[in-house]
């Protein structure tokens, strides 16, 4: 059955990230993302999800760096690639949307120009052509009156609008992989669904694979085909989304699921209390792989691609 699966867009094997060689932050994480698939990484803050995403993009900030393992993307070995070639992949073949839309855009440049820059860098267009394409891109992310908005500055847009701009920018060159790092966490609840729907629609239409990083199980459940659960720098469980919610195998996953506040779970009149994860999961259960872990392409220790 494994044989008919396509080659993965991204294949992460035994990824280690640390500060120098002393302090390890990510201890041997492995997963694959197939073309067009939406893969979720879920875990608490500090579990190493974002750092994993940044390492794929090659955007880790000193003193953080990849200390071991392998990263393969569309036939490129990202650990051996020349920085220049990695840069060319960024924005073109792999793109990223960040958590904070308020500060993620250059405050002094019109948004149309910031989107147009993608076409100038990666498609070699001149600015006037690129700006026309930018307006199209804004239209595709359902920004109203895109021509006018292209001339607006980031501070003139709401948080939700800015995140749409970020999505338009990330998808401008129709990348093969979109890394979305908590794309809706900083947004009002009312606009979260819209932005997620947008990402889902556009990526399905283009066949773009998505690595969705989130601490929000609700978001993951709605968006992803498969989910990896990260805890303390390790991938402790990976399953199809449906299976994960129905039959979580790792104690940490069970704790994560149980810690979700649920509507109506409180007995009226009784003081409600959010349960701390620390109290739910025994310490010796945390940060360890479960033996059942397999990738869609079989046992996961050797490098594919």
């Amino acid at each position: 059955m494994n044989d008919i699966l396509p080659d993965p867009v991204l294949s992460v094997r035994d990824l280690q990230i640390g500060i120098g060689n002393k302090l390890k932050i990510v201890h041997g994480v492995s997963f694959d993302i197939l073309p067009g698939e939406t893969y979720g990484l879920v875990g608490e803050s500090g579990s190493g999800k974002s750092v994993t995403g940044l390492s794929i993009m090659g955007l880790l900030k000193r003193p953080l760096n990849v200390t071991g393992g392998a990263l393969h993307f569309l036939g490129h070995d990202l650990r051996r690639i020349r920085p220049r070639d990695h840069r060319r992949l960024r924005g073109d073949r792999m793109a990223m949307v960040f958590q904070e839309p308020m500060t993620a855009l250059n405050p002094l440049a019109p948004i149309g120009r910031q989107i147009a820059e993608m076409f100038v860098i990666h498609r070699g267009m001149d600015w006037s052509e690129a700006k026309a394409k930018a307006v199209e891109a804004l239209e595709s992310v359902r920004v109203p009156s895109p021509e006018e908005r292209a001339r607006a500055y980031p501070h003139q847009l709401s948080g939700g609008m800015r995140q749409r701009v970020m999505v338009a920018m990330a998808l401008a060159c129709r990348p093969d992989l979109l890394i979305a790092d908590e794309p809706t966490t900083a947004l009002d609840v009312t606009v979260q669904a819209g932005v997620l729907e947008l990402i889902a629609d556009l990526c399905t239409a283009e066949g773009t694979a998505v690595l969705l990083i989130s601490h929000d199980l609700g978001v993951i459940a709605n968006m992803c085909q498969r989910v990896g659960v990260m805890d303390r720098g390790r991938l402790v469980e990976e399953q199809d989304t449906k299976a994960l919610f129905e039959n979580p195998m790792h104690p940490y996953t069970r704790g994560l699921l149980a810690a979700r506040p649920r509507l109506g779970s409180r007995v009226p009149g009784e003081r409600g209390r959010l349960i701390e994860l620390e109290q739910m999961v025994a310490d010796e259960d945390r940060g360890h792989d479960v033996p059942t872990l397999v990738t869609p392409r079989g046992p996961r220790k050797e490098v594919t691609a």
Partner: protein
Amino acid sequence: MSRFILRRVLQMIPTILAVVLIIFVIFSVVPGSFVSSLLAEGRNVTNAQVVSHLNEQFGLDQPLPVRLWDYLSGLVQGDLGTSYRTREPVWQTIAPRLWPSIKLALAAMVLAAGVGIPLGFLAALKPGSVFDSATMVVAVSGLSLPEFWFGLLLMYAFALQLGWLPSFGYQPGSISHVILPAIALGVSPMALLARTTRSGVLDVMNADFVRTGRAKGVSEPRLVRAHVARNVLVLVLTTMGLQIGALMGQAIVIEKLFSWPGIGSLLVDSVATRDIPVVQGTVLVIVLWFLIINMLVDIAYAVIDPRIKVG
């Protein structure tokens, strides 16, 4: 835009009034009046009649509020009063000094910005490097340097020993005369600009939108040119404005050292001769220069930074 400018101009008025008031009050409590300082110099103003005549002539016998009122109403008409010493209108004494002073301030600023900003920029691109440390050592030294001493050394080395440049004086249109005083005056703003630029670049390089730029695949040189530079400029502009504005005041000692016929040396000379109307006039000009430059900086901000509301 014109309403924005008008509003900024109107905002200057209370400050100017307060400055006039402070300066006026300070010089009204002068224990030794101009007339008595003439006496002290042994001029032949010995008898009481002459003293009272002189006092009357300059209106010094009037009560303070009356004198202040007279001064202010003159000021509104562009009349800065009459020099005690030359008996000429103060404005005529100041006017020919303006251009040399502005020229020196601008020359010093061009040097300071031309050296300080690139230094700070390069230092910040490789934080912790030898170049960075060396730049910061130069910067803290520049801020600690007594500029008139530095000027004296420059004069000794380049004018007296090497004979490359004139040691003092001023000639209209001459560039060689302005070089040494401008270097001496420009060192401390240069150091300050190097520091501000460096910390500005470090701040901006850590900003989220720079990470976005990298995620877009923008090359580092392009990132610095197209995204970082303008954002740093916004940070550096304030420092530059404050520095140019303050330079005319800071130039006092340098002007005196190089016998530069500017506002600063006029101020020192009139302080020495207690020519109060000229002192008041020069201080007012120095303050006006500061306020006008800062207003121009605000306007420049409104042009560069779209976040500032105009109108």
